[in-house]
C-alpha cells in the first residue's frame, strides 16, 4: 500500500532523508520510530504530498506522489504533529466545513460526519467552540476530520504527543479499531512505548537513514537473534542456569543485577533461546518443577526501546 524507494529530501545543505526504502502492506499498522529530527515528519509529509522528494519515489496505493498528488490525497488521511485548528467555530461547523472541502456530496455529508463522530466518540463536543476543547479532544476532532472521506491510508504524525495518559489510552484503542477496519496506518513517534502495543511492523529511522524495517518479530530476530525472557525466582537462584542448561535450545542464561532480590536470596535472569513460544512453556515448566519459587516470566517480544537502542548503536 505504501512503497518508498530511495526517498531523499534536502533542505538547503541539510539532508533530512537519505535514500529511505520501505514497504507497508495493506492493512498493516506501521510505526515509524526515531528521535526528533530523524526524518519521520519529512517522510510523512512527502507521503501526504505536502513535500516533493528531492530524489527517489514514493507511492501510496500504487499512485506516485509526484505524478498524481490529487489521486493520493483522495485515499490518504493526514494528521500532522503540531496541527493548528480553527478556534472560533464549533466542532460541528469544523467537520461540516471539511466535509464540504473534501468534496463529499451534500446528501452523503451528514452520514460521513456521523460515522467519523461515532468512531472518534466526539458526539458530546459538537456544539462546543474548538477553542474550548482540551488537547485530547482536539486530537480526536482532528482524527475525525482525517477520517471524513473514509481514507484507506492514515498518516499520523506523532498522534499521541502532549496527550495525558487517559487520552493516550483512548487514542490507542481508537487506532486499534481503525486497524481492525482494514485501514493501512503509518504513525510516527519518538515515544517507543506508545507504539509497542499498536504496531504490527516498525521502521527505525535515524539521521535521515532507515536503520531497519519490517514486522516487529522479524526486526527483533534480525537485530537480536533468538528470543529473550526475564525470569525471576525467590529461592536458590544459583540453580537456574543448571536447570536450563539441560535444554539444547537455550543459548544463554545471564544473571541481572537486582540488589533487592539478591538481598532476599532471590535472583533475576535473562534467558535467550531459539524457537517459538512453546519452548518457553517448557522452560517455565522446568523452572516450576525445580521448586525455585518462580514468580515472573516476562517475554521480551515487544520491547521497542531495546530494539531501537540496539539498532541505533546505543544498546547494551
Amino acid at each position: 500500500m505504501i512503497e518508498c524507494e530511495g526517498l531523499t529530501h534536502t533542505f538547503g545543505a541539510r539532508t533530512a532523508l537519505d535514500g529511505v526504502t520501505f514497504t507497508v502492506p495493506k492493512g498493516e499498522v506501521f510505526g515509524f520510530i526515531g528521535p526528533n529530527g530523524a526524518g519521520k515528519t519529512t517522510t510523512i509529509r512527502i507521503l501526504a504530498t505536502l513535500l516533493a522528494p528531492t530524489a527517489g519515489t514514493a507511492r501510496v496505493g500504487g499512485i506516485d506522489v509526484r505524478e498524481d498528488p490529487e489521486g493520493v490525497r483522495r485515499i490518504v488521511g493526514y494528521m500532522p504533529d503540531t496541527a493548528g485548528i480553527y478556534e472560533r467555530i464549533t466542532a460541528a461547523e469544523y467537520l461540516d466545513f471539511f466535509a464540504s472541502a473534501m468534496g463529499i456530496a451534500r446528501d452523503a455529508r451528514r452520514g460521513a460526519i456521523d460515522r467519523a463522530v461515532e468512531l472518534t466518540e466526539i458526539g458530546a463536543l459538537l456544539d462546543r467552540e474548538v477553542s474550548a476543547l482540551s488537547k485530547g479532544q482536539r486530537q480526536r476532532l482532528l482524527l475525525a476530520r482525517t477520517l471524513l472521506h473514509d481514507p484507506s491510508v492514515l498518516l499520523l504524525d506523532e498522534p499521541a504527543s502532549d496527550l495525558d495518559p487517559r487520552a493516550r489510552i483512548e487514542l490507542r484503542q481508537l487506532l486499534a479499531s481503525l486497524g481492525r477496519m482494514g485501514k493501512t496506518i503509518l504513525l510516527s513517534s519518538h515515544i517507543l512505548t506508545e507504539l509497542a502495543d499498536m504496531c504490527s511492523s516498525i521502521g527505525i529511522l535515524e539521521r535521515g537513514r532507515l536503520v531497519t524495517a519490517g514486522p516487529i518479530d522479524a526486526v527483533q530476530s534480525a537485530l537480536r537473534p533468538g528470543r529473550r525472557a526475564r525470569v525471576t525466582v525467590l529461592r536458590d537462584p544459583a540453580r537456574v542456569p543448571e536447570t536450563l542448561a539441560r535444554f539444547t535450545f537455550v543459548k544463554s542464561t545471564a544473571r541481572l543485577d537486582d540488589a533487592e532480590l539478591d538481598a532476599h536470596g532471590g535472583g533475576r535472569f535473562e534467558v535467550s533461546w531459539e524457537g517459538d513460544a512453546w519452548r518457553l512453556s517448557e522452560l517455565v515448566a522446568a523452572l516450576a518443577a525445580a521448586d525455585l519459587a518462580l514468580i515472573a516470566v516476562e517475554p521480551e517480544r515487544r520491547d521497542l526501546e531495546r530494539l531501537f537502542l540496539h539498532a541505533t548503536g546505543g544498546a547494551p
Partner: protein
Amino acid sequence: MSALQRISDALRDANPIVRKELLAALRTPLYVRAVVVSLVFVGTVVALSAASIADGREPWEGGKTLFQVFFGVTFFVMVLVGTTFGATSIVQEREARTLDALTLSALGPRRVARGKLAAVFLSTAFIPVLALPLLGVVTVFGGVTAGHLAVATVYALVFGAVGAAFGVAVSASVSTTRAAVTVTAPPVALATLIGGSVLTAVGEQYARSHALSIRGPLFFADAYFALPLDRSYLLWLVLAPLWLALTPGTLFYAVAHAGLLDATQDATRPVKRWALAATPATLALALAAARWTPASTSDRVGLAWSLTGAAVTLATAMLFHFAGTARTPTRRMAREHTGPWRALLPAGRIPSLRFAWLYGALTVALSTALFAAGSPAMRALTAWTAAFLGALSGLMALRGARDDESSGAARLHGVVALFVTGVGLWLVALLQQLGGGTHPDLLAHPTAPLALSPTWALLAALQAVRPHDVTADTMRALWTGAGLYAAAALVLHALASRRGRT
C-alpha cells in the same frame, strides 16, 4: 427545505471557505473591535466636518463637502482594513499549519484563493454597510443625489476589493504575518496618498471643464449622470475604471493562486497567463484612448513611454518571481503543459526567464509600433530595453542554470546588475563631483550606454524627461548600449543553456 436554506447551501457548496471565515470573523473580538473603531472613526470625522461647515454656507454645498469626506474616509478605512485582513488571511493559516489541511482537501489552490478573497472582501464590506446610516447626515444637507451615493459606494467596494486582493496576494507569498503586514502597509499608504492626490487634481480640472456639480476626488460620481453617453463616456467612465480595477485585481489573484501551488506545480503559470490576457487588454484600451480622444504626437509618444515603463517594470518583476521556480520541470508540470499553452507558457527556470524577457521586449515593441512609430528616440529606447532585458535574464539564467543552484544566486545577480546599471552612473557622477571635477555630462559619460535604461525609466516615471528632449549623444548612447546588451544577451543565454546541460 426553505428557499433561504437552499440559497445558503448553494453558497456553502460554492466555496465553503467563505462561510467558515465569516463565522470565525464574527466571533473574533479583534475583528469586532476593528469594525467598531472604523465606524467610530468615520462617524467622528463626519460629525466634526458637519459641525465645521454648518455655519455661513449654503446647506447643499455643505452636503457635497460631507459627501467627499464620508466616502474619502470610508474608502481609506476600507483599503486599510481590507489589505490588513487580506495580508493575514493565508499566512496565518500557514503559520498555524492549518493550511496543510486545506491543501490536501478537494478545494484546490484556485478555490482557496477565491474563498479567501471573497471572505476578506465581505468582512471588509461590513464597514461601509454599517456606516450607511451616517449617510443620513450627508443627505440632510442636500447637494447630492441617490445616484451619487450609489456610484461612490460601488467605487469604494470595488477598490476595497482590489486592496483586499493585494493583501491576499502578499499573504500567499510570504511566510510570516509580520512580513505580510510590513510588506503591505507602505505600498498601500503610498498608493492611497498618491492616488488621492492625483484624483483630487484631475477631479478639479475635469469638473471645471465639464461643468460638473461635484469637484475634487469624487467628481466621477456626478460625471456618470451629467455627461453625454458617447465614446468618451464609454472610454473614461466605463472601460478605464474597469481596467483600473480588473488589471491589478486579477494580477493579485494570480499571485495569490501561484503562492498556494505546491512544489510539483508550475507557480509561474498564473502570472504568465495574466500577462498574456492583461497586455492585449491594456494595449486595446490605450489604442481606444488614442483614437477616440484628441491626442497630439507628444501625447501618443508619452503614452508609449508610459507603457514601456510599465512593461519593463513588470518584466523585471517577473524575472525575479520566475527565478524561484524549479530548474527542471517536474513530471507533473510536463504532464499538465499540454495543448496550445505548452509553447506559450514553458515550465522550468530558464524557459520562464526567457518568457519574461520576450514578454517585456514584445510589449515594448508593440507599444512603440502602435503609438510612437515615428519617434527615433522611442525606437532606440525600445531596442535598448529589449536588449537590456535579454542580458538581465541571461545573467539570471546563467546563475541559476543547474539543479543544485538555489534561486537566491540568480536573484542576487539580478539585483546587483540592476543596482550597477541603475545607480552606477549617478555614483560615478557623484564621485567625480566629490573629486573636485566639474558637473559631468551624464549622457556623454563612457558608461552611459550601459547604465541608461533604469535611470531613464525613473526619469520617465517622474515625467522629467520627454522623448523630444533626446539629444544626439543620448541617441548614440542608446544604440551603442542596445548593441552591447544584445550581444551580451545572446552570449549569456547560450552559456546558460550549455551550463544547464552539463
